[in-house]
Structure formats: C-alpha cells, structure tokens
C-alpha cells in the first residue's frame, strides 16, 4: 500500500506545531497502525530526522496509552478498538491519513502525538477509590452478596482504560464518560456506598477544575470508546450528584 500521512509535529509543549506530510510506499495491510508508524520512524531515523513521538505500551488494547485522532476519529475508523488494534487493512492503497493528538485544553500536547493525560489521574485521586483496610484481614469479596445485574454493570464501567478517546471525540472536550464510568463502578457496589457522596462531588469538582468542557449528550464518546462504556454511566453520575446534594 502507498500512503500519504499528514502528521501533527510539535517539538515541545511550548513550541507551535504543524501538520507535516510523509509518504510511505510499502505498507502491508497486515501491519498494525503502530507498526506502520514504527516503519515510518525507522525511515526518519535512517534519514537523521526526528522520529514521530507517540504513546504506546501494551499494544493489545488494554493499557489505553495509544492515543491518536486518525482521519477525524479517536482511535481511527473502526469501532471498539484502540489504535494498536487498528490494522492497515482498514485503509486503502493511495489513502491520505490525518494523524493528530487528542485535542483538549486539559490534555496539553507534550510532543508530536503525545498528550499529558495526568488530569485523569488527578480526577481519580479526588475520589476514584474505596478506603479499605488491606492489612491482611480483608474480607472475602464474595462474602458480600451483590446482584448479578449490579456486578455486571459495575464490571462494564470498570473496563474503562482511561485512554481519553471520549474527551478527544467530544465536541466539548468533556470528560464525563470517563468520570461517569469511575463513579458508576463504585456507586453500583456496596463497598462504594460509604464514600459515594464525597466521591461524586470531589471527582466532578476536580473534572471542572481541570478545564474539561460540559457534556451536551451528543453520544460521540460512547460511539468512540474502545471499551463500549455506555452513556448510562453519565446519567448515573448525574443522579449520584443530585442525590449527594439533596
């Protein structure tokens, strides 16, 4: 496959970036998207040019590190996958592919396609946990009866890998799908009830402080989420916040 890549290049957080064109002539349809970028980077290194910086780690759709906005969509054209699970067979010979970093004020670009997603960490630290004694006498989780329905929904919410695709695809750069998933995962379980009110208040306050936009229920986040996190988690977070304030 012959491809034209239009990639956002930015030397550092302080410098101005721009789209730079690259040509690749021998891309296998069986390559993953990241492998294609590896080939490009090898070419650049061979030419004594700066390789494209991009985040990646597990390369099996679990860690949520690979964060790219490809041809106008988070993680590219296919549904429910991360960039590392995207393969070049999803594109055609002769295609032009735009590759950009997540765009949000709360996710500043560090270099090229790498953004700083530590805002998510700070939201988690504000309340995305339960305080339990882990000194060796922890109660067996199965000793607490939990309905199958609640356990399944909590597990679905917990599959959020915090990649930030929800923020990137939202026209408002809203983080509510992420925060909704983290609030839901505990709100659905008895262990999460003790700190439920403080959790939702603190996490929402931190989310606002980080400069994310407001959700207008377009549903783009749900469509682009690689883990299929449902909008129902945002509705649940809203209910939890109303409950916490009443």
């Amino acid at each position: 496959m012959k491809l034209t890549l239009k990639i956002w290049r930015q030397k550092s957080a302080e410098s101005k970036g721009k789209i730079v064109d690259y040509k690749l002539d021998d891309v296998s349809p069986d390559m993953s998207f990241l492998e294609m970028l590896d080939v490009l980077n090898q070419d650049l290194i061979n030419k004594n040019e700066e390789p494209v910086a991009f985040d990646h780690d597990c390369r099996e759709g679990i860690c949520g590190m690979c964060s790219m906005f490809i041809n106008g969509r988070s993680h590219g054209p296919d549904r429910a996958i991360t960039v590392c699970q995207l393969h070049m067979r999803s594109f055609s010979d002769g295609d032009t592919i735009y590759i950009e970093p997540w765009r949000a004020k709360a996710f500043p670009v560090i270099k090229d396609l790498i953004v700083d997603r530590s805002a998510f960490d700070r939201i988690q630290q504000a309340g995305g946990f339960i305080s339990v004694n882990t000194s060796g006498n922890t109660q067996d989780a199965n000793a607490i009866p939990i309905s199958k329905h609640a356990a399944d929904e909590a597990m679905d919410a917990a599959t959020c890998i915090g990649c930030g695709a929800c923020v990137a695809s939202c026209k408002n750069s809203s983080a509510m799908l992420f925060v909704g998933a983290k609030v839901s995962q505990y709100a659905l379980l008895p262990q999460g009830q003790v700190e439920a009110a403080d959790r939702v208040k603190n996490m929402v306050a931190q989310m606002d402080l980080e400069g994310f936009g407001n959700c207008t229920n377009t549903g783009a986040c749900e469509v682009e989420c690689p883990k299929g996190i449902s909008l129902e988690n945002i509705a649940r977070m809203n209910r939890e916040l109303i409950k916490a304030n009443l």
Partner: protein
Amino acid sequence: MSGFFKSSIGRKIAMALSAFFLMFFLLQHFAINILSVFSPDLFNEVSHFMGTNPLVQFALQPVLIFGVVFHFVMGFVLEIKNRNARQISYAKNNGSANSTWMSRNMIWSGVAILAFIILHFIDFWFPEINTKFIKGDWSGLHEGVEGYRYFEELQHKFHSHIRTIAYVIAFVFLMLHLLHGFTSAFQSMGATAGRKKTLQNIGKAYSIIIPLGFIFIALYHHLKYVLG
C-alpha cells in the same frame, strides 16, 4: 446547593429543568393555537382567559420569560465554555461518524429559535403588553371586530408570505432542536435508566408532531387568506 448549580453537571441539570418547562409551555401553546383551526370562538375564549387571568399574567408569565431568558443565556454561556475547552481544532474531524447533526448544532438551531422568538414577540407579545399594561385595555375587544380580537389578530399576521415562510423555517429549526433536546434533557437529569428507547420514541413523536402542528396552523391561516 449554590455550589451544585455552579458545577458543570449542575448547570446542565438547570438547562434540562428549563427545557422541561419550555417543552410543557410549547405543548399548551400548541393546544390553544390549534383551536384557531377548529373553533375561532373557543380560541378567542381561551386566549382571553390566558390574556387576562391574574395567575397567568402575573405569576406564570414572568416565570416563562425567566425560563426563556435563562435557557438562552445558559446555552450561550455553556457553548463559550465548551469551545474554550478545545483551543486548537482538529485538521480533520469526522463528527458525523459518531453523532447527529442536531446534537452537534444545538447552538445554531437555538440561535434560529431565538431570532424567531424576537419576531414572534414583535408580532404578538409586545403589542399585547402595550395594549394591556401601557394602554390599560384588558377588554380583549377591538374596534370593528365582532367579539374578542385574538383570532382576527392571529389571522391577520399570516397574510404575509414572508412571515409565514419565516415561521415555517423557524418551526423546522425547533424540530431539529427538540429532536436532540428532548431525550438530552432526560439524560441530563439521569432519568434514562431502563427507559431510554421509550423516551427516544416519545421524544421523536413530540419533536415532530408539535412543530409540524405549528407549521400546519401557520399554513392553514395563510392559505385560507390566499385562497379566499
């Protein structure tokens, strides 16, 4: 509680509450206006009741005005804040792949509705306020008009081609706004659990029937005048 309404979620809940109020108002406005097609006398009677009842005029009307102003102001405030949350746009953004046009353009359908409301106020509300609160005429009568004046005034407004077209276009934008706004308001309130499909269907029915009904009323009076 004031902190709640300063939070992002509190604000969207406030938007949803004002939207519920406006959607209820729209329903009762339509219920009254459709009477003008079936029974001019009944339309006049109900209009006179609404136009002179102290509860409606001095309690509900100010709440309505507040609701309308609040919904628009908060809508613009949130839009500015949301635009500020992404300072560099994407070179290529395929929004239609993951969301509807209506959901992405609520601000523009809202601006079109605001323009319509200004026209509608000039047409009906300002003259009504002038007659009742400045001239002090609460009789509902007008020289040369038999019975109450309301039906006559309504018909007269739809003599103009341009005004009728403007009203029809505005109702199309209202439909587009409601097609996203109805379900969105319930979602913001966290009230979609287990009933999302039902709410979406009710929302579609409401969003299409009410604006189409208003279009029908405007065209009915216009064509009645044009065709004699």
